[in-house]
């Protein structure tokens, strides 16, 4: 007899198998005629400039983190809001302290200037440097065309 986990495991296998078989079948059936345009990442968009492996501006992460923190805050505050009345003043106090600490964190970020987008000059990758790099996608694309 299968346990509940066993059933899930079978589902997992089936799911993986489905994807695998579908891709494999497509590979067998489809025609294969690559051109330069077809192999571009955005076939009908702009041409790619440089490698996708560039450093993203750290501020994206900061925003993401702030979002995360306040998101989690909401998760904690919902249950608190439902029950704090049972605990009277102390229950209220706990929530206030929690919010104050979070607020302090927010103020800290603000004061440190982490919320200003143009705080320092970001380190933008230079095209000339990237083009000399062998890993650039355009070069790869050319090679692929040659092979085919």
């Amino acid at each position, binding site marked *: 007899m299968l346990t509940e986990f066993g059933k899930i495991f079978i589902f997992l296998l089936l799911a993986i198998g489905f994807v695998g078989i579908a891709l494999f079948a497509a590979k067998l059936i489809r025609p294969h005629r690559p051109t330069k345009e077809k192999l571009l990442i955005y076939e009908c968009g702009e041409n790619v400039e440089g490698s996708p492996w560039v450093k993203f501006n750290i501020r994206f992460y900061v925003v993401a983190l702030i979002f995360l923190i306040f998101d989690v805050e909401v998760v904690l505050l919902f249950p608190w809001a439902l029950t704090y009345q049972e605990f009277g003043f*102390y229950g209220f106090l706990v929530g206030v302290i929690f919010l104050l*600490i979070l607020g302090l964190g927010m103020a*800290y970020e603000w*004061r440190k200037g982490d919320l200003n987008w143009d705080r320092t000059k970001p380190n933008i990758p230079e095209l000339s440097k990237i083009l000399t790099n062998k890993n650039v996608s355009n070069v790869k694309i050319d090679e692929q065309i040659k092979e085919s």
Partner: protein
Amino acid sequence: MINEILNSITFIYPELAVSIFLLIIVLVDLVFHKDKKYIPYISLAGLVITGILVLNQIGITHFAFVPQLSAVKKYGMMTIDPFGSYFKLLVVVTSILIIFFTIASEEVIDLKERLGEFHALIYGMILGMLVMISASDLILIYLSLELLSLSSYVLAGFLKLRERSSEASLKYVIYGSVSSGLMLFGISIIYGLTGSTNLYVINSLIQGPQINLFTLSFSSILMFVGIGYKISAAPFHFWTPDVYEGAPISITAYLSVASKAAGFALLIRFIQTGFTSFISEDGYWTLIAVFDWQALLIAISILTMTLGNFSALWQDNLKRMLAYSSIAHAGYILLGIAVLSNQGLIAVLIYFFVYMLMNIGAFYVVMLISNKTGSENIDDYDGLGAKAPFLGVALAIFLISLTGLPPTAGFIAKLYLFIALIDANMIVVAIIALLNTVVSLYYYVRVLKHMYLTKSEREQENITPSIGSLVYLLVLLIPILFFGIYFTPIVEFARSCVSLLGI
């Protein structure tokens, strides 16, 4: 419920004090962000207050935060006991020493702008350690471990413009997350097995016959990996040398003492509370028959000390050498736990106290010298004995104590460790440890040789430490020499702090 929480708060005053001062430091940093020279003093004041609160707790044995759900037996999430108080005191004292350390360290002085963050992060570490020492609930253990780790990742890479520092931080994060992931996995399996996260409940449940031994062992090993990473036990120690070398030296000293102490406290509590069925009258622990903890601990400790000592042999960077030496010391201390007796525990407590003094001292001298010469390379120590007589003698005493030779306190620490080993009839292990000590002599004495016997090729000015540094070193040196001769006070203190909250 609310009463229980309010009542429990009286037992976590030290942790509360640390949290409050953490907020104060952040606030001060925000409000007076032009002038940050008061921040170290605020953090010192906070530590002193915390220390007093911890001292008040010594002798108290109590559970805090007992959930109401377990109506039958009252086991709390936190345990206040003399053992924990000893380690908390150790952490607080170490932190105070480290704050003074950073005041003198030029690496940190250069970071005037970010001093507030630096101290706030140190406080984060302290909070993590204090909670970790008392935690008797797996969730709390994990949370405090993460708090400690996250703060220390940032601190390790605090000199972000220095390549090695960033590398150190990155490596630290990678290994930290791998091992905390493993630990979390272990915790989830234990929870799955027993349905509880409280160590005391787990202890009583796994004594039953229906437990799958392999699963339990597996999860315990995963827990052990998480802790072993914190105490840098082999083979989970590889991050240590790289991180210790790259981090600012004050943080290296801190990591090597305080966070290791907290890790050991956790390990001892985990084994003693989670796996001990009873303690006999002569102080030996009988463990629940899950797997052979003792053999595992002995193997790991011998591996740790051997790897640490042998790798340290030809290190030319003193910071890196001390990193390896701290790995080796973790091995010795692990042996004290492996005895699985109160006698061994006393040895561990004594060892940590002495280790704190001598390790911080050694790092401090290295820091002072690198302040002047800008290098930690052993060749730059040539002829130091003549150029800086006091620093030379101080470093010599610290190194001799680290080796464990009389008349220093390091000898007493090793002596009690070996007495515990021999008392438990672990003669072979004792001999291996002794041989390791002999190996360690090579690399400690090598520094002395460079200081006193090798003539410097370059002309260098004399190094005269400031009055503050002199006092600091004396504060470390005097106890090392004093306890080397008259060691009853620490032995008695350790003996009185050996009891954990029982099962």
